């Protein structure tokens, strides 16, 4: 009897080219990260976004699969970022009654806090004599990815480096933010949500939603407002001061 020998190389070529495998490993890495997070008792440092990214990045480096090929499949997940951003209108609406009264305070806090987040990062980079395009890439760090890349382009940064520092700022805020806010004795869920959404966009908002509904709504608001204000103000301020 002639049993066909499976051609492993051909199989590998198929898997690497089709979107199915990349999409599947992305979801599996996310589930593994969620399980790991539960094992570590939901500790803020065990951020599932960070753990899933590290798992997949190590996987790509070990197997030698190109990021471009991986993204062919993973883009279906990436695409949902748009509808999910639109979806933030729902928690915002549910909290609207409490939110409307607080709006002047919210606007002031996001404007000043968002600028502090941007310029503190820039100041550190300047103090360490970083190259101008690296300093510019760091400025829109706390703004959600698509807006941040647009801002970086306008002020002379590298949009793709900006994407990387935006995501690390999100993960940093989600991981270290809760401990810092406990240290500062911030107890108002509205203030906590607003702070993490303003400084750590969607990754911070994801953390806030999983902890408290009110914090989640304020985080979404902080993220949206900071994107709006930074997109308008940062390019103007950059031209004036840098």
């Amino acid at each position, binding site marked *: 009897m002639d049993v066909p020998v499976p051609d492993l190389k051909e199989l590998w070529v198929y898997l690497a080219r089709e979107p199915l495998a990349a999409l599947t490993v992305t979801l599996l890495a996310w589930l593994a990260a969620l399980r790991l997070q539960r094992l570590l008792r939901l500790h803020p440092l065990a951020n599932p976004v960070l753990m899933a990214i590290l798992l997949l990045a190590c996987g790509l480096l070990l197997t030698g699969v190109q990021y471009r090929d991986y993204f062919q499949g993973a883009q279906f997940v990436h695409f949902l*970022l748009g509808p999910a951003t639109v979806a933030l209108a729902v928690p915002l609406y549910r909290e609207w009654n409490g939110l409307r009264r607080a709006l002047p305070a919210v606007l002031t806090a996001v404007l000043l806090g968002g600028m502090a987040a941007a310029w503190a990062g820039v100041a550190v980079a300047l103090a360490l004599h970083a190259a101008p395009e690296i300093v510019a890439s760091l400025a829109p760090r*706390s703004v959600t990815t698509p807006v941040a890349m647009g801002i970086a382009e306008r002020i002379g940064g590298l949009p793709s480096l900006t994407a990387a520092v935006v995501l690390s700022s999100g993960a940093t805020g989600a991981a270290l933010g809760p401990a810092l806010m406990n240290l500062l004795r911030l107890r108002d869920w509205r203030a906590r949500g607003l702070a993490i959404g303003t400084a*750590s966009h969607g990754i911070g908002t994801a953390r806030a939603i999983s902890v408290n509904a009110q914090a989640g709504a304020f985080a979404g608001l902080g993220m949206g407002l900071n994107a709006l204000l930074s997109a308008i103000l940062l390019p103007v301020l950059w031209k004036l001061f840098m």
Partner: protein
Amino acid sequence: MIAALATLLCCQLAGELLARLLHLPVPGPVIGMVILFAALVARGRVPEALGRTTDTLLTHLGLLYVPAGVGLVLFLPLLAQNWLTLLLAVVGGTLAGIAATGLIAEFLFRRWG
């Protein structure tokens, strides 16, 4: 669920079109969020199916950042060269932003109600 997804996509599409037509500095999905919010205010309540779909989507908001995040493998040389600067700027800037926003917000919420 499909009707809810269609609603979200319509808002995003309208947002993208507005952003392009009016040359707004804000991306389409953020304008889409404003459009959906205005529609909910006009309607006076969240339709049940929409609420369920958005809750599911937002529970896994973190997952949606993963594919872009894996892109850090493209920057390993640049990251290796500037890691200290980037690390200090990211951590320092983020913590400064959280502290400033949180302290100002808590102070103003207490003062202004």
